[in-house]
């Protein structure tokens, strides 16, 4: 087992290194360097070449590409993420502010989508082939077909503008004191996000439940004369939903990427809307750090999944890929 984990780590770190190099290289090739973005258009006509050069010197941009990458890598490992070009705020500070907001949104959405998705999936499996099952399947497909931001906009129009039940967007307002004040703000974005993800959870739950219902212990339970509802609850749900919940739990990193556009629609101050803002402003240090953070999260999650699957199923670690 330990050799397997070490093997995986031998893939994990080089992968991270290669990706960080590629991202650094990509942004290096992008038009304009840091200095050209710092100068406002009004100043651009008056600034001289020497002044530009002096600025480049001051920021260390005249050094060779590899040297700069090396320096950046070292400081990154030491925990210094550098500074955003817009306003010169420390990137670590931005991350510390935005990541909790995204996690809050994602976890709430994940919990709701799991509960709704699993229950609908189980219902649809129990009534397999019926009208309910078919319409749930179609509804699930509609869920993955409607653009999330369009759904979000309709929800804003309906619940925030017309009915005025909920705020249009944002997360914290100055006069908020307790956790309860914040709940209205999270309802719309998390619900929209959750409904978008329900389809996937429903599909998993349905096929897993169908799988379990065909097993022999269900037949045994039935032959003992156990009432149908007891069979479903005691034997069906428990066995069918455990793998589903585990699987969905691991989709959290994907979800963190998936919330990007919804965060923007609802002005949710999370890492996703920060990423979009940095892409728009060509704030390269921030773009790079945030995308590498995403990569880190995805790779870590897949490492954990791999190790857990290997723990459960010895064939994985003994066999080839």
């Amino acid at each position: 087992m330990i050799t397997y984990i070490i093997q995986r780590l031998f893939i994990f770190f080089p992968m991270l290194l290669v990706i960080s190099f590629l991202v650094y290289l990509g942004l290096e090739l992008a038009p304009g360097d840091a200095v050209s973005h710092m100068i406002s258009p009004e100043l651009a006509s008056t600034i001289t070449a020497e002044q530009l050069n002096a600025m480049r010197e001051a920021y260390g941009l005249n050094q060779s590409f590899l040297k700069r990458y090396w320096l950046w890598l070292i400081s990154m490992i030491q925990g210094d993420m550098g500074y955003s070009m817009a306003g010169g705020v420390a990137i670590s500070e931005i991350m510390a502010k935005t990541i909790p907001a995204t996690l809050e949104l994602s976890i709430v959405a994940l919990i709701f989508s799991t509960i709704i998705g699993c229950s609908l999936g189980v219902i649809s499996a129990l009534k397999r082939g019926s009208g309910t099952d078919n319409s749930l399947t179609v509804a699930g497909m509609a869920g993955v077909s409607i653009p999330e931001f369009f759904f979000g906009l309709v929800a804003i129009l309906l619940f925030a503008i017309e009915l005025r039940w909920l705020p249009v967007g944002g997360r914290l307002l100055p006069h908020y004191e307790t956790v309860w004040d914040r709940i209205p703000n999270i309802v719309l974005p998390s619900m929209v996000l959750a409904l978008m993800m329900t389809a996937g959870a429903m599909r998993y739950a349905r096929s897993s439940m169908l799988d379990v219902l065909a097993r022999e212990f269900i037949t045994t339970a039935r032959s003992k004369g156990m009432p149908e509802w007891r069979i479903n609850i005691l034997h069906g749900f428990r066995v069918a939903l455990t793998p589903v919940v585990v699987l969905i739990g691991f989709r959290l990193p994907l979800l963190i990427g998936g919330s990007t556009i919804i965060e923007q629609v609802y002005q949710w101050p999370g890492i996703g809307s920060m990423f979009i803002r940095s892409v728009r402003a060509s704030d390269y240090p921030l773009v790079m750090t945030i995308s590498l953070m995403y990569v880190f999260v995805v790779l870590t999650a897949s490492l954990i999944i791999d190790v857990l699957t290997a723990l459960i199923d010895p064939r994985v670690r003994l066999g080839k890929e």
Partner: protein
Amino acid sequence: MAKSSLDKKFDKIREREESKSFSTKKRSRIVSKFVNNRLAVFGLIIFSIILLATIFAPLLSPYDPMRVDLRSMRQSPSLDHWFGTDNTGRDVFTRVLFGGRVSIFIGLGSAILSALVGIAIGCYAGYKGGWIDLIALRVSEIFMSFPQIILVLLLVSITGQSLFNLMAIFILTGWGGMYRLARARMLSLREEEYVQALRSFGLSTFTICYKHMLPNALSPIMVNITLSTAMFILTEAGLSFLGLGVPLNIPTWGNILNVAQDILVLQNYWWMWGPVGIVISVFVLCVNFIGDGLRDSTDPSQQG
């Protein structure tokens, strides 16, 4: 002497065999299964209607999608302007038709091209194995280490915005999935007897993997192309909505929706963003229906 009933039966079978009614059976089974799937047929019909409407857009609408007409700004839907007009007096219905051209082209084009790239690499690497396979696998893993939307945004920030760049980015982010699919099929087909027979005949690797093995891997690939078309159309819409996709001067479904970022438009002028949002949703839903129907009719193990 009268023929026995058994003879008659045999004659009938021979007759049917000779008229070749058996030979097309496999294809017709797939078609009939697809036709029996009501959702898939419904999807195909609506898909075709929308596709044809965008192709023949100039015949269906007397307006120019780009022409600004400040005298008829922000008009609500009427007989002259079915979906009303936008902030600069352009006819929204016309823009939805012309926008559909670009959006569908991006979605379908990226899906097909990324499939071609993925299949070309996946077939060869999957069949040959060795270092080519290892490199391709690692490269595809690099692309898969990003959440999809993040990778697309990152590449947009590197390359800048244009129609061509966007398609290139979609292909770059989309080939990995197709590569893995083709590779997995190849790995399982590689040990089949007919492949070993071909190899013993001394056929070249290219002939074996592209001409003889690829057709047997085609049906999951077709399904995947449909589903990734849907995904690319949604991604384009999302990016253009954010103002980071196709440049705003080209009408696409996402770019038309872009105005809805303004809360005043959202609140007061529903026709500028509502109908186009519905058109996107319906179109993508139809593509998904078609994909699902294809999967059911070509792959019996996926049913249920």
